[in-house]
Structures are given as C-alpha cells and as structure tokens.
C-alpha cells in the first residue's frame, strides 16, 4: 500500500512535469510535442535520477556517520564540485560537457581528500572525522572558489553562481543516458550494504558483535554514496536538503530497515525533485529559479522541525 502510494506519487509528479510549463501543450498532443519529448521528458527523468540518488546517498550516509541530520553535501563534495565548475567557467573551457566533467572531477578530488582525512587515525574510517574533514575541505574549496569568482567577469560570475544553486535546465537525453549509466554500480553496492547498515545504527562495536565487517562496510558505503552525490552534482549542481529530508520521510513511511528504506528514499527523492523542478520553472515563467532555491525554501523549515524532534529527547 505504501509502495503503491510512493510509486503513484512519482508517476503523478512525472505527469505534472510533462503537462505544466510556460508553453501550453494540449493534453491530446502531449506525446507528439517536441517540447515534451525533447525538453520536459528528459528533464523530468533527470530530476528523478538525481533526486533518487540524493535520497539514497543521504539515507546511507546518515547511518554511516551516525548522524540523522547529515546531508550528502556535508562531506565536502559540493565544495569540490563547485570549485571544479567555477574553474572550468573562469578558464573558458568549451564544450557541453566541460562544466559537468570539471565538477565531477572536483567532487572526486574532494571525496578522495575527505576519505584520506577520515583514515588519519589508522585503518579504520572514523565517521566523526569524516564529517569534520568534509566541512574543512568544503570551506577550503569555497575560499578558492570565491577568490576565482571575485576575479572573474560579471556574466561569468552570474553563471557560476547560478550553477552552484543547482538546476536541471541542462537536461538532455544525453545527460539522462550518462547519469543512468553511472547509477547501477553504486546503487547495487548500497542495497547490498542494507543489512550491515541496519546493524551499524546500533554502533560500530555492537555491529561487529552481530557479525558485520564494519570496516569494509563503512568504506563501501562512503565511496558509493559519495560517487552518487558526485554524479548528481556534476549534472545538476548543488541541490541541497533532498538528501537530508528524504531519508526522514522514507523512515516515517516504510520504517528504518535499510532494505526497505533505501528504495523508498530513491522513489521519494525522485518525486520531490521532479516536483521542485516543476515549481522552479513555472512560478516565475518564462524565467526560472535554480531548483536548489526551491528545495532550500521547502527544506529549511522541514529541517527546523526535524531538529526540534531530534533534540527533544
């Protein structure tokens, strides 16, 4: 029943994304319209993939770092990706894939740095240091990024700034295809870690006593979830709060067991981002807002509510 609800919500969101928009398309001609086929459909699908990835990555990372208020971008990836993208914009690297590739490379560098920092204490990945390392790497990248932006031309600055707030306007069938190709491996890795993640929620030592290979699980989950986040940020910029809020929605809907939570978080994340993007491109049509602004406007109040709930006891 809950799953039926999740799937129908997603289908409704996709339908809304196809029907709504500044250019009116009669319902009867929906499938023939090139606007729907070449613009709205790939954009909705990209929203689904990116939102789903963020929901999935957020759910697994919250259990990994043992903090229910963690967001996938807390681990420094947004800073690395932003720095990569701003560099590409400032250096006038041409081609349609320049910014995504540069952002992806930046995110991977940040991922590697934070991962290395997380290992400073020894062979064991320390979740607390992961969080602190993420904040430090993010701050460093932010500083360099601002330095570059402050030296750049005005239009470049605007582009870079808008890119940082995330958006799906660059969606095309190519980006959908590339994104879809990147997802299966990390998604399978995370789903395979579902049961050990259940154990990890009790703490590392209890998880060990129950038979989990905690060290390997932590590494796999960190790398897979961060990779998903890096792919998302490369194709859609920094879209905040989806990865933070969706895991809580998922837990409220299907419970805390990761075997159910992770797929639910993917569906819910996809639904939310498709809806947010539809809002972002219709409320101020014909112009559009970066979708990250919509998710932040909706996400911050929800975050405040969560914060109250989690600190209540």
């Amino acid at each position, binding site marked *: 029943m809950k799953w039926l609800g999740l799937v129908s919500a997603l289908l409704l969101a996709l339908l809304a994304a196809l029907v709504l928009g500044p250019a009116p398309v009669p319902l009867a001609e929906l499938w023939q319209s090139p606007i729907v086929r070449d613009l709205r459909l790939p954009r909705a699908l990209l929203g689904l993939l990116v939102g789903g990835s963020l929901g999935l990555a957020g759910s697994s990372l919250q*259990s990994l770092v*043992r903090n*229910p208020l963690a967001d996938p971008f807390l681990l420094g990836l947004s800073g690395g990706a932003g720095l990569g993208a701003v560099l590409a914009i400032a250096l006038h690297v041409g081609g349609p894939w320049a910014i995504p590739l540069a952002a992806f490379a930046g995110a991977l560098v940040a991922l590697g740095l934070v991962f290395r920092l997380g290992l400073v204490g020894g062979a064991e990945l320390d979740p607390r240091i992961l969080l602190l390392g993420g904040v430090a790497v993010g701050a460093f990248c932010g500083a360099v990024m601002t330095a570059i932006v402050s030296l750049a031309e005005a239009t470049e600055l605007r582009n870079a700034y808008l890119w940082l707030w995330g958006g799906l306007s660059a969606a095309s069938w190519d980006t959908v295809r590339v994104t879809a190709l990147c997802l299966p491996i990390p998604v399978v890795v995370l789903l395979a870690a*579902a*049961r*050990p993640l*259940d*154990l990890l*929620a*009790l*703490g590392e*030592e*209890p998880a*060990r*006593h*129950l*038979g*989990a*290979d*905690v060290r390997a699980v932590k590494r796999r989950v960190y790398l897979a979830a961060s990779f998903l986040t890096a792919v998302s940020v490369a194709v859609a910029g920094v879209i905040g709060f989806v990865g933070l809020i969706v895991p809580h929605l998922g*837990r409220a809907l299907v*419970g*805390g*067991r990761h*075997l159910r939570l992770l797929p639910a978080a993917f569906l819910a994340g996809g639904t939310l981002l498709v809806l947010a993007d539809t809002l972002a491109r219709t409320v101020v049509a014909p112009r559009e807002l970066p979708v990250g602004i919509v998710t932040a406007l909706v996400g911050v109040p929800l975050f405040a509510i969560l914060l109250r709930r989690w600190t209540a*006891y």
Partner: protein
Amino acid sequence: MDRVLILDVSDVTFRYPGVARDALRAVTLGVSSGELVALLGPNGSGKTTLVRVALGLQPPRSGSVRVLGRAAAEWSRRDLARVVGVVPQREDNLFPQRVRETVRLGRYPRLGSFGRERAEDRAAVDRALERCDVLSLCDRWLWTLSGGEYQRVRIARALAQEPRLLVLDEPTASLDVRHEMELFELVRRLVDEQGLAALLVTHDVNLAARFADRLLLLSEGNAVASGPPADVLRPERAERVFGWPVAVSSFDGRPQITPLRRPS
C-alpha cells in the same frame, strides 16, 4: 551433557599502544558449555580489555585466544557471531526501533544468500523473544521499555544469533533489585537448560558469587584468583583487590561480601 570448551584464553598479555604498563598480564580463562563464569575486579582492572581480547577485537601481545579450538583472529566476524553472542555494555540506537525489529538483527550472521529471511529465522526470533520473556513486548518501541525489559530484549537479540557462548558486559548496571535478580535468573536458566556457556562481567560481587560456577578475579591486569566462588572470595584477598575492608559471610553455601564501615 558433555562440556565443550568454547572460549580458551591462555596466558594472554596485552598492552595498549603508548602505555608503559601491561593491561593484562598472563591471564588464563576458559569457558565451557553449561557453565557460567563471572569476571570480577575493580574499575580499571582489565575486565573490559580481557573481553575485547577474548572476542578477537584486540590481538594479544603474547599468549593465545581460541574459540572452539581455532585462533580468534582467524574467525570472520560473521562466523564468530554464530558462536558468540555479545550484549555490550552500551549501545545507542540511532533511529527509533521496535522490539521485534531489533531482535531480528541478531539473525544477520545466519541469513542465507542475498540476506533473505526464512521461516527458520522468524522461528528463531520468536524462540529468543519467548526465552527472555519479552514476546508480549514485541511490538513496543524500544524507548518505551524499562531498563530491565530493555536488557532482556538485548539478550534476546544475542540469543537470536543461536550462539554457544553468551558474553554479557555489566548487564545489571543501573537495574533495581527485582530486574537484577530476574536477569541473573534468566542467564542461569539459559546456561542450565540450553547448555549455553556464559561469561559475565559484573561489579556485583555477591550476585556473581551466588549465580556463577566459577569466578575470575582481576586486579591491575593480573588474574589473582580463579575457581569456585568460595575459593576465590577469601577475606584478605577481597580486601586487597577491592582496596576496602570487608567481611565475608556465607549464604546458601555461597560467600557474600559486606564492605565494612571505616572507624572514624
């Protein structure tokens, strides 16, 4: 029932990195099926360290740790979890959980390929809930339980692993008399009826003396005595180890310790 030696810690010495003193010095400890062994000693005497070494979480500097005859370091965590169930002193559930859900986690080391839950897994969970007398609580949220109920649920989770050795680290800390007694009675019953081996770390010397078959008394990393409670808890020895004058009396044939008031 034949006694099988399950945990065999032999002549183990351990030192934490960067510390000049041994945390354990030539400690020997064996736990067999159908036997309840209690580990006693003041704070900092090495009880927790000994448990960690015995569970293969810390490699000893010298000596050997064997579980069912095989070196602890050679066991995978999963295989070890099928033999040894642990109720750690502390855990904190990151997310709200119900009783049955948390007990199901105990099946993790025994799940089949692809982690599928089979009928036998569900049966084992029910059995564990029933043995610990928490079947009626199975739909409750963990945070609604009393301290005693919560500890019994955690023992049920360890039993769901279907282990041969149960290790309990301070299970009765902060429990009232009734819950403390219920818990000791439960562990004793599991040992007698299921032939489980149990290793109990505790500060409660008197309950340990009444329920355990053998005691191991640790002091500053040394095993100062081990054997039946009456042999271990001699007045001079207890005074020396616990650093406080005591009187030893006998109750039901078991030694009981009463700390004395210091004359002012």
